[in-house]
């Protein structure tokens, strides 16, 4: 009878428990993701190879391959993803480098400038770029008033606008992915290189840069895969020629109800994502992807993996040599001391430029919301709170706000509960195939959101969950649970289990140990995990787009509809409110996370 209770205890590690019993904390997450993630996605895949009558068919795939429109869309999708990745990595590297080499205290204070954009709604950010880049937007006005151009420059509804918006969205992700790897690079190595006679430039190119390559490649993969599934930015900032695959899927489902074809497109997208991932895993290995998951049991690399690693090492080595060769030319032209000063200044400048690029749009949205005029303008016309009043007096906006808070709270709690249980099991048990379990738990981050959204829509249409709060809560919990697992695992990995052992020898049962010793100590981490889950749901549009079915609306859903129709100052007011709420939550979450042991 004590079996269930004892399992949460670390002492149970070596206790001869039946393997199934030891896995029970993983059961809720397995059932949950099984029912609302794996099953519907697989269902969607089978839909793509069936006719409406139920026979097997390759027709949908043939259509994608044969119709040049879709081949074109795929090509555009990859092209945009590629350029976004390139721009994002170039922008992210100096920022991540500066953060990684700064002192811990300085890093913590600078980090917030990356975290705020990272967690700020894509919609809010895209909206900001619409204000800035539009025909009558702030940038064009400035260019005209400075006399640089006579007529407005086309910055929006084309590739430029799309790339600006998408890079802006992806740079924080790239920084966050690179940073953990860069932080593990021992600064003493650089010092050692200095004592061995390497000058600044050489130290960087020969020592630091090659070591940071795993972080760079991890960032590449995360940015590339996320970019593949984008639709908000290309839809709002791009033109017809920037239509990406996700937009086509949405049209196929929402307007044509062509499930099979949408499924086939989703398979293409998913396959592309998984292929890139598999490639990455072979060459670099998964461990570098998340700082938290790196500590998880390292699987012995397969034969192919080792070959890949060696190949990867050779490529990185070659890159390093190439860089060093370039650097030597540069060094010959410049005296060493001037180089150091110049390098530092250039780095600070790059850092300031990128951070400015990330923060800037928000600075335009906030003033725009206080305009007294009837349109979104910059600089704003006069000052008034009329658009906040409009927001507060609109039943649509208010109910959307209420729904968003309710759904985010509930899905946050669901994710926290099952995610924490899973995190306990994953950090404290010897679990066979732990890497595979972790991969499943984290896969909602990797599978493009639109795939999950369409799959859930199909599942819900049969369960009559479309247009329900429950449906949205479940969908958002699927997306939020990986963040909870990562956060709680990170907290637990630093938790000293001897506290629990001590409590047990002092007479505390496993449940009382959990309640009185473990949970109180990791509470800040749990609250942070909840806040991250909350923000994930609060900001979520893709699933809401399908699953709400027009019956219930959330804030992002309402913003999206309004933005597609017309830009108005109410949107600026809502965006400002979102910005403030998110930033406050984020500061709270970060504060708590840093306080936890």
């Amino acid at each position, binding site marked *: 009878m*004590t079996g269930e209770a004892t399992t949460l205890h670390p*002492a149970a590690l070596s206790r001869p428990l039946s393997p199934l019993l030891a896995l029970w904390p993983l059961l809720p997450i397995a059932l949950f993701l099984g029912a609302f993630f794996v099953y519907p996605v697989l269902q969607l895949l089978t839909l793509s190879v069936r006719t409406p009558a139920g026979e097997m068919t390759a027709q949908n795939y043939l259509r994608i391959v044969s119709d040049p429109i879709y081949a074109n869309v795929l090509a555009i999708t990859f092209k945009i993803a590629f350029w976004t990745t390139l721009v994002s990595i170039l922008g992210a590297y100096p920022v991540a480098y500066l953060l990684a080499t700064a002192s811990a205290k300085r890093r913590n204070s600078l980090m917030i400038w990356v975290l705020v954009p990272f967690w700020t709604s894509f919609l809010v950010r895209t909206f900001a770029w619409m204000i800035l880049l539009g025909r009558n937007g702030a940038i064009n006005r400035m260019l005209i008033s400075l006399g640089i151009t006579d007529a407005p420059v086309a910055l929006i509804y084309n590739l430029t606008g799309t790339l600006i918006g998408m890079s802006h969205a992806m740079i924080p992700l790239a920084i966050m992915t690179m940073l953990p790897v860069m932080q593990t690079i021992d600064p003493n190595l650089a010092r050692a290189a200095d004592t061995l006679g390497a000058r600044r430039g050489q130290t960087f190119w020969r020592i630091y840069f090659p070591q940071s390559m795993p972080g760079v490649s991890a960032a590449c993969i995360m940015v590339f895969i996320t970019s593949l599934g984008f639709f908000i930015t290309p839809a709002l900032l791009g033109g017809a020629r920037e239509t990406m695959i996700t937009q086509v899927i949405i049209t196929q489902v929402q307007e044509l109800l062509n499930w099979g074809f949408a499924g086939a497109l989703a398979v293409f997208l998913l396959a592309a994502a998984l292929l890139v991932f598999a490639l990455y895993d072979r060459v670099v290995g998964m461990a570098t992807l998340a700082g938290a998951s790196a500590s998880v049991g390292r699987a012995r690399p397969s034969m192919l993996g080792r070959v890949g690693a060696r190949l990867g090492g050779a490529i990185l080595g070659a890159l390093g040599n190439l860089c060093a060769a370039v650097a030597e030319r540069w060094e010959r032209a410049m005296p060493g001391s001037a180089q150091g000063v110049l390098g530092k200044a250039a780095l600070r400048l790059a850092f300031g430029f990128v951070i400015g690029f990330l923060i800037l749009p928000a600075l335009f949205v906030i003033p725009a919301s206080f305009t007294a005029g009837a349109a979104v303008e910059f600089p704003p016309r006069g000052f008034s709170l009329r658009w906040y009043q409009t927001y507060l007096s609109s039943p649509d906006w208010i109910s959307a706000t209420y729904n968003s808070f309710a759904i985010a709270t509930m899905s946050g709690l669901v994710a926290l509960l099952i995610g924490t249980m899973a995190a306990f099991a994953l950090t404290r048990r010897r679990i066979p195939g732990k890497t595979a379990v972790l991969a499943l738990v984290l896969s909602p981050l990797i599978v493009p959101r639109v795939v999950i959204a369409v799959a859930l829509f199909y599942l819900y249409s049969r369960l009559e969950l479309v247009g329900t709060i429950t449906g949205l809560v479940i969908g958002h919990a699927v997306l939020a649970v990986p963040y909870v697992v990562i956060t709680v695992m990170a907290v637990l990995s630093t938790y000293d289990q*001897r*506290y629990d*052992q001590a*409590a*047990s020898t*002092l*007479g505390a049962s496993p449940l009382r140990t959990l309640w009185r010793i473990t949970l109180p*100590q990791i509470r800040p981490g749990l609250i942070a995990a909840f806040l991250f889950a909350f923000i994930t749901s609060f900001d979520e549009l893709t699933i809401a787009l399908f699953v709400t079915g027009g019956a219930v609306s959330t804030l992002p859903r309402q913003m999206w509809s309004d933005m597609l129709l017309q830009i108005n100052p109410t949107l600026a007011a809502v965006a400002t409110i979102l910005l403030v709420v998110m930033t406050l939550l984020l500061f709270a979450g970060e504060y708590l996370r840093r306080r936890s042991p």
Partner: protein
Amino acid sequence: MATGKSPENKTSPENKSPKKLSIVEVSKRYGDVAALDSTDLDMAEGEFLTLLGPSGSGKTTLLSIVAGLTSPTTGEVWIDGRCSTRLPPFKREIGMVFQNYALFPHLTVFENIAFPLHMRRLPAVEVEREVRRVLDVIKLPQVADRFPRELSGGQQQRIALARCIVYSPSIVLMDEPLGALDKNLRDHMQMEIKRLHTEIGITVLYVTHDQEEALAMSDRICLMNNARIEQVGTPDDLYFRPRSIFAASFLGESNILDGVVQAMGEKAVISDQAGATFEARPDARFKTKERLCWMVRPESLRVTRDAGPPGNTLRGRLQDVVFAGGVTKIHVRTDQGGMLVAKQLTTANGVPHQGEEVFVSWSGEDTVLLPAAAP
């Protein structure tokens, strides 16, 4: 044969006299690796028993098996006459002091000490009284409302002890509790633990790799090596009557030489390669003509310029004199080529000089026979 002293002990294994702890054929394997070979060990009420050994010798494994933090592959653990092999730690009525103390950082000193009492659902009045009582015992009544991080290492150590003795556990287990303290504090805490042990009469199972600590504190020492018990006995036993080369060399310093048994009776006689014979303490384990090792402690050797009275004597040349404060170590290369180290109290004069011919002599009583080293 019930002794009648403690009726609750009637289920103890084989019905022997009451024991606090009985470890019966306990072993632990991780796959092919034996962390602990089949081991038997008993502890009497009020005893201070130390598990001593190098790291990886199995002492911590044995301790955590007793605590219930690790379950044995085979064998049984009896605590207070109750078979506890399958009991989780919180049902064993044991106390444990961890190496890093494991004081709960989110609870005050008072709450930390009260924790085991709360777990036993004692009324608040009693909790208050008991916590105050042990805080007095460890002489730290003023820190009750502080948090562990606000205390010094030595104070934390004493709080950890207090938390352990407040509920009078059957056995207190200590896992290298002084490892994190500096030398002076360690000496002081040794006395403190010893004082608590005698004053309260607790039974202590103590783990350390520090031989001085073990010799100073223990009633009995259980010397461990290579996942098994090497020898169990009083500190005296282990020091003066080691039963193996490992025991002889792990505790204190020793001169170990090869030899062959010439006679075994009232007194033992052994010879070395050169044919010289020596008297030794008899040991029934060895027969005539058997090859073995013999050991003399450096402090049992006398180094003189003259041959002196007949007895165990070797001639040699003084190689080196090392002055180490109160004692002086004298290294002598014997005529047979072996090296002997003698330890003498330092005196202002009379130490022979390097290169001088000297005689090393010792008593047969101080010569201990040991099984030959494995080939």
